[in-house]
């Protein structure tokens, strides 16, 4: 028993310390061995009466202090780095032809990584993650060259003025040119090592990013939503392009997104199918659901007896001038005259939401000029077809869209946030009950993570989604380690990691590096792992760092703008057990796109059962005696076969079901009991 305690303390020290670097694999294996030894130690026949939980709730675990990300020496390929709770398997520079040209977003298909680049795209074979190999370096300049795949098709975004239809590197100098490509390029990747450029779709604003949507009800087409943030191209270059306001020209390219329909049998016939104006009529208040200080302001206003209306789910203090107008209307409506009475005031208080809502609608109708129709484009639209939702990050708004009809997306809700400069991208949790928006303040080329930059600016904002589709603000989360003014840094792209029952995301912060955080409790996000390098040029800010990082089949793949491609794997820590990692690694994707969110589903495995058991311990949701019983039972079952195995599993399952009522999370205990029962039939 003493030994066991020593072992645990050792692990604690190890995971608390940001292990200073690299090549720690042998150490990790030992740690892993030790961890397993803890289990076997615990599972031996020792007295059990005093077993204490060894996993702590994640909010109670110390973070590294001092933060090792502060003060790292810089350099492009010769730098200092800090890593915590991750293992860097490889860091591979780009092929020579792509050196000095920005690496951008990633897509995945089978064992391949497709990495966009301002010079074209690169295909890496990641069969050996410790040594990924370049199999294609396709020269075809365009910005940003964000990439997506669907079956045998690869889509690449082009927005900049220098992109050419013929993939030439010489750019386009003329304002109006028939050589220019701004829109989507389509490649056939049936043979991924020999991509073939088969078609393109030109759009008025070009494609900054795009999202690929496969409608579960439509097997013949795939849809691409185009987002563009650059100015509209001239009508002479692409007929029909207009930057007039929609009330002057209903075909204006402003205030809309483009939906491209791609027939899978004839992808060269891809064309714009619809240009829905999903922004029209937006009058959402310029605040998120109340942040603590705003809530306090509203509370003060209430105490002072001021009028507080609720509009689109969020409280707003109505200004006194408007209250006078409303009161006059009430006086007029009852045929009275003169000063409003106390009764009028009471009437207003009782019906304030109605009066206020009416006023906003009148104002909207009176506005007329299209300038006021809300945001005019989206930066990113994240599609989550399994839950029928999309998250649009559209200028000053975060939108929730219904995409059950892919050609006709409609808006369900919109939020704005006084701390958000520019809504950039959206990520849902796996259940679709929480959505996280990022604010790409400064566009990604500015240093916005300095000590002097506020925590709420250039951060993530996390919202819960109610059953009726309303988004409610919960918290901000920003990279906690201050960066230098030589490092461009702001919230950027990332993805969910399939840790069952936990909302864990990995995210890019440009030269702020990458980090993992847990936002299962959307009010209290907690950082649980990170990697960061010093600036590429310590003298001055040069654009570099992590453009995007995504989980794909057990690995975290990072597109480094200047330095190439990094591949990480998760390592166990107090924040994340080996069992949880093993359970995540049972999820297998055939492909993955940056703006398409897959729904993770976990096969019934011992790893899943053990991960849930660990979580019950961590969250103090089940007594340790039962937890030990489950662990011992799972070990025993895994080492037996046939009827012996089934007997053990059924016994554990039944016993666990009986304990459910004593648990503070009986649903989860019952879920675990079912999984354990099903393990006997799983291979």
């Amino acid at each position, binding site marked *: 028993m003493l*030994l066991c305690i020593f072992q645990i303390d050792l692990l604690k020290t190890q995971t608390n310390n940001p292990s200073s*670097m690299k090549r720690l694999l042998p150490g990790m294996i030992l740690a892993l*061995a030790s961890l397993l030894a803890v289990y076997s130690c615990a599972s031996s026949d020792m007295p059990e009466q005093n077993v204490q939980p060894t996993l702590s709730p994640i909010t109670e675990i110390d973070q590294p202090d001092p933060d090792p990300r502060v003060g790292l020496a810089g350099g492009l390929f010769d730098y200092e780095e800090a890593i915590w709770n991750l293992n860097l398997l490889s860091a591979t520079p780009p092929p*020579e032809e792509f050196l000095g040209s920005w690496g951008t977003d990633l897509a995945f298909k089978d064992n391949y990584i497709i990495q966009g680049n301002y010079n074209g795209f690169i295909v890496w074979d990641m069969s050996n993650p410790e040594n990924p190999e370049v199999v294609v370096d396709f020269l075809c300049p365009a*910005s940003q060259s964000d990439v997506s795949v669907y079956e045998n098709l690869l889509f690449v975004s082009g927005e900049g003025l220098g992109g050419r239809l013929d993939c030439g590197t010489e750019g386009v100098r003329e304002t109006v040119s028939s050589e220019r490509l701004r829109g989507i390029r389509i490649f056939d990747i049936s043979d991924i090592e020999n991509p073939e450029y088969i078609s393109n779709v030109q759009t008025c604003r070009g494609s900054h990013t795009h999202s690929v949507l496969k409608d579960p009800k439509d097997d013949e087409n795939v849809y691409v939503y185009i987002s563009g943030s650059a100015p509209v191209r001239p009508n002479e270059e692409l007929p029909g392009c207009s930057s007039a306001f929609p009330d002057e020209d209903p075909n204006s390219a402003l205030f809309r997104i483009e939906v491209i329909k791609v027939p899978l049998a004839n992808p060269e016939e891809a064309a714009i199918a619809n240009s829905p104006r999903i922004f029209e009529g937006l009058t959402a208040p*310029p605040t998120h659901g109340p942040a603590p200080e705003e809530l306090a302001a509203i509370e003060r206003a209430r105490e002072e007896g001021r009028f507080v209306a609720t509009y689109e789910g969020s409280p707003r203090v109505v200004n006194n001038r408007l209250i006078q107008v409303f009161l006059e209307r009430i006086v007029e409506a009852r045929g009275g005259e003169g000063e409003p009475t106390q009764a009028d005031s009471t009437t207003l208080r009782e019906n304030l939401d109605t009066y206020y809502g009416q006023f906003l609608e009148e104002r909207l109708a009176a506005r007329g000029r299209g300038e006021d129709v809300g945001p005019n484009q989206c930066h990113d639209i994240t599609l989550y077809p399994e839950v029928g939702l999309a998250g649009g990050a559209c200028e000053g708004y975060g939108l929730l869209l219904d995409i059950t009809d892919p050609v006709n997306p409609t808006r369900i809700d919109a939020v704005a946030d006084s701390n958000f400069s520019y809504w950039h991208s959206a990520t849902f949790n796996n259940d679709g009950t929480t959505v996280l928006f990022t604010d790409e303040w400064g566009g990604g080329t500015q240093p916005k993570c300095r000590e002097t930059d506020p925590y709420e600016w250039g951060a993530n904002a996390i919202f819960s989604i109610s059953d009726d589709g309303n988004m409610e603000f919960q918290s901000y989360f920003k990279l906690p380690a201050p960066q230098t003014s030589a490092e461009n840094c702001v919230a950027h792209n990332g993805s969910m990691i399939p840790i069952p029952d936990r909302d864990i995301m990995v995210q890019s912060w440009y030269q702020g590096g990458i980090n993992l955080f847990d936002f299962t409790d959307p009010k209290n996000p907690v950082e649980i792992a990170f990697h960061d390098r010093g600036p590429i040029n310590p003298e*001055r800010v040069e654009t570099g760092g992590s453009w995007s990082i995504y989980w794909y089949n057990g690995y975290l793949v990072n597109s480094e703008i200047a330095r190439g491609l990094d591949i990480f794997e998760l390592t166990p820590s107090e924040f994340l057990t080996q069992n949880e990692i093993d359970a995540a690694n049972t999820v297998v994707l055939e492909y993955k796109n940056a703006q398409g969110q897959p729904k993770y589903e976990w096969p019934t495995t011992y790893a899943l059962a053990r991960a849930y058991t660990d979580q019950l311990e961590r969250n103090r949701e089940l007594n340790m005696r039962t937890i030990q019983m489950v662990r011992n039972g799972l070990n025993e079952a895994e080492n037996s076969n046939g009827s012996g195995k089934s007997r053990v599993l059924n016994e554990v399952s039944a016993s666990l079901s009986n304990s459910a009522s004593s648990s503070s999370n009986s649903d989860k205990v019952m879920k675990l009991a079912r999984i354990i029962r099903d393990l006997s039939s799983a291979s």
Partner: protein
Amino acid sequence: MFFTITNRFFLALFSIAALFIFLLSGCSTTQQTSEQTSQDQTSQARAIETQRQNHAEMEEIYWDRIEQSRMNFNQADVDFMTGMIGHHSQALIMSRMAPENGASRSVQVLASRIINAQADEIAFMQRWLRDRGQPVPIVHIDGINMTIEMEQPDAAGDHSNHDMDSDMNHEQNHDMDHDSDMMHDHSDMPGMLTQQQLENLAAARGKEFNRLFLTYMIEHHKGAVIMVEELFAADGAASDTASFELASGINAEQVTEIERMKLMLENID
């Protein structure tokens, strides 16, 4: 089940080994080149040396290309950057009044965001010009008065050492060791306030300041958007990646802020 070791002796050995490895790794530096301790020190040293050479070669190619890519600009880009520095500087003058003139909390938040964003962008545009051997406007702000000195490019063309760090007061504390011209007049740019309007704003307090600030800043932002449109309408302009990114960013962010300010204006008491 490779690691099912129940023997206590082995467990103890494992613990000690793990501790030892841990201590070792704790002592190693964060140098990227740190390799696993190996008995064959010479071959390791050789490998490190080879890697360092490869890295040095790649770095050279990288920075050469970054340098080359900076030459893909034209006069329209230069005019845009030069003009926008003055344009942004006026936004700083306006925004810095907010705390002293009794602006509301939301206007103060907006103003400090504008200061943060546009001061960084000014530094970015100054670097952009200096990198390309162009005259660089150096802005001096004194209350509501602004003077702009033009820092002339180095004859030697060595501009790599003249970094403007992007702290908040870069426009004031630059060491002027170059010939300079004076340039005062930016009033022909769209959205620029007249000196009289600036004085009115400086004299306004409280709600009146909020109203005037938002009204003027909306016009000011619209002017910046027009300048971006003019840039994109010029042949060959914004082919430079940094220019395209900056101009698109200004376009997107200021359009967003215009919308926000209109709503704020409507909600003033």
